[in-house]
């Protein structure tokens, strides 16, 4: 990481600490914001969060590793999550998965070469009456067909 990038990140984290406070209970909110902006929480950010909250960096890493929505390895700019749980499975989520994999040229768990998309499975998203369901970042999409799913992804910038 360049020094300028590091400085910018430090500044950003300082602002987050200002906003959410130095209390331990602010940790997840701070990590969430970093994750949302950078799509991952790099080592340097972990160290800075730890320094500013006065906890050990291992504590920060341990929390990140627990939650599915937080990660240390960079992912694509857009995260596509397809529900794999039973009700969506019965509505033929496999056809949607096949189409998405074919169209983007990656398998579940992988990131496209241009880093535009990472595709993952997720567990029940609370849209079981509307399956098959998929999320692109924070947005959710329902009653998908293979065609519709691909169309949605084509519209993502």
């Amino acid at each position, binding site marked *: 990481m360049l020094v300028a990038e590091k400085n910018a990140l430090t500044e950003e984290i300082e602002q987050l600490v200002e906003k959410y406070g130095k*209390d*331990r*209970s*602010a*940790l*997840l*909110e701070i990590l*969430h914001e970093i994750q949302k902006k950078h799509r991952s929480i790099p080592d340097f950010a972990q160290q800075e969060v730890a320094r500013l909250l006065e906890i050990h960096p291992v504590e920060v890493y*341990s*929390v990140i590793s*627990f*939650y*599915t*929505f*937080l990660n240390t390895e960079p992912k694509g700019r857009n995260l596509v999550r397809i529900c*794999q*749980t*039973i*009700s969506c*499975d*019965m509505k033929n989520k496999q056809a949607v998965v096949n189409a998405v994999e074919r169209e983007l040229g990656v398998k579940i768990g992988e990131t496209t070469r241009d880093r535009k998309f990472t595709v993952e499975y*997720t*567990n*029940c*998203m*609370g*849209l*079981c*009456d*509307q*399956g098959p369901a998929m*999320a692109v970042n*924070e*947005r*959710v999409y*329902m009653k998908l067909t293979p065609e519709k799913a691909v169309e949605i992804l084509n519209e993502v910038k």
Partner: protein
Amino acid sequence: MVENLRETRQGEVLFTDYTRGESVKKALSMERQDVLFEIKDSKLKGRGGAGFPTSTKWMLTAAAKSEEKYVVCNADEGEPGTFKDRVLLWEYPDLVFDGMIIAGYVIGAKEGILYLRGEYEYMLPSLEAYLEELRKDNLLGENICGKEGFNYDIRIHLGHGAYVCGEETALIESLEGHRGEARNRPPFPVTTGFNKKPTVVNNVETLAAVTRIVEKGGEWYKTHGTDKSTGSKLLSVSGDCEKPGVYELPWGTTISELLEKVGAKNTKAVQVGGASGVCLNKAQFDRTLGYEDVGTGGSVIIFDESRDMLKVLKNFMEFFVEESCGQCIPCRVGNTKLLEGVEMIEKGEFTFGYINKLKDLGKSMQVSSKCGLGQSSPNSFLTILENFKDEILNYANGGRNGK
């Protein structure tokens, strides 16, 4: 985006007309004790799955001596097949937040926290906007609705994708900025909750019901449902039926009545309570929904004759293997062993002796796991193997009769 069907929903308790703030104002005109009495009288039990009497929980928290107390609304809704809390938050935020305010008044809290699962982040802007309106109407803030000394606000905390965080002590750990690992209970959150302060944790639907109970009275509430299971229940219905969705039905409804209502045909199996619930076969469709028979947090998944029950079970066990927090051995190792067992049956490479051992393992998990996740994760394994024995055992003989 998700639709809003409030205008077309039908129900007797929750899916009805309500004007925001009515119950809060009524509660504030009453003594705390009297509000508690109404809730006690209603016999309301927790809708998050465990079915603990709400008034007892509130009484313990109200009685706990502390300057700081908290109300937590559990909107982590992660049980496979459950989406009723999504509907309440999206279409009936008035019922839910009014319930949280009433809870704050009764136990003497200054802050309420809505723990919203990360998957529902798309609701965040509208919920935040709604809270702003409540502040403008002085339903949140200082001296609420003129009640001297009642200062209370609500904030929203987002989850980050961990099913176990729905368990109340794991949820509190998560609120405090830790890994969502369940705590030993006792001590219970009613005395030692968020930041070690007395905390009431309630499901979204429980709080919505409180709002209606305060409005209409405990006596009225009891006219719905059965003796032991008063009121109504929101059921999240998905799977093989014509009309999936959320239904409000009185407790005491039978499985067959429900199937009829949602347009389910050729039904072979009904999973009640999600992946951690039980799987019923045709012979059991006359059983009733309620704490006295088939209790549930509200997930109902329907399978017709074309479904392969071993595949269903495999999907559930994969879920638990992924979602176990790994803290205790019965759950961490047990679920992996049960999943392996399912895969062995799938391949036809198992002995009956070994499957019986796995059933015993499942029973030990029910008693030895640290939290409800591990305690309930073997339920599907045990009930599917028991209730669909013929179908599953045919795997062993190379046939797939049930399919």
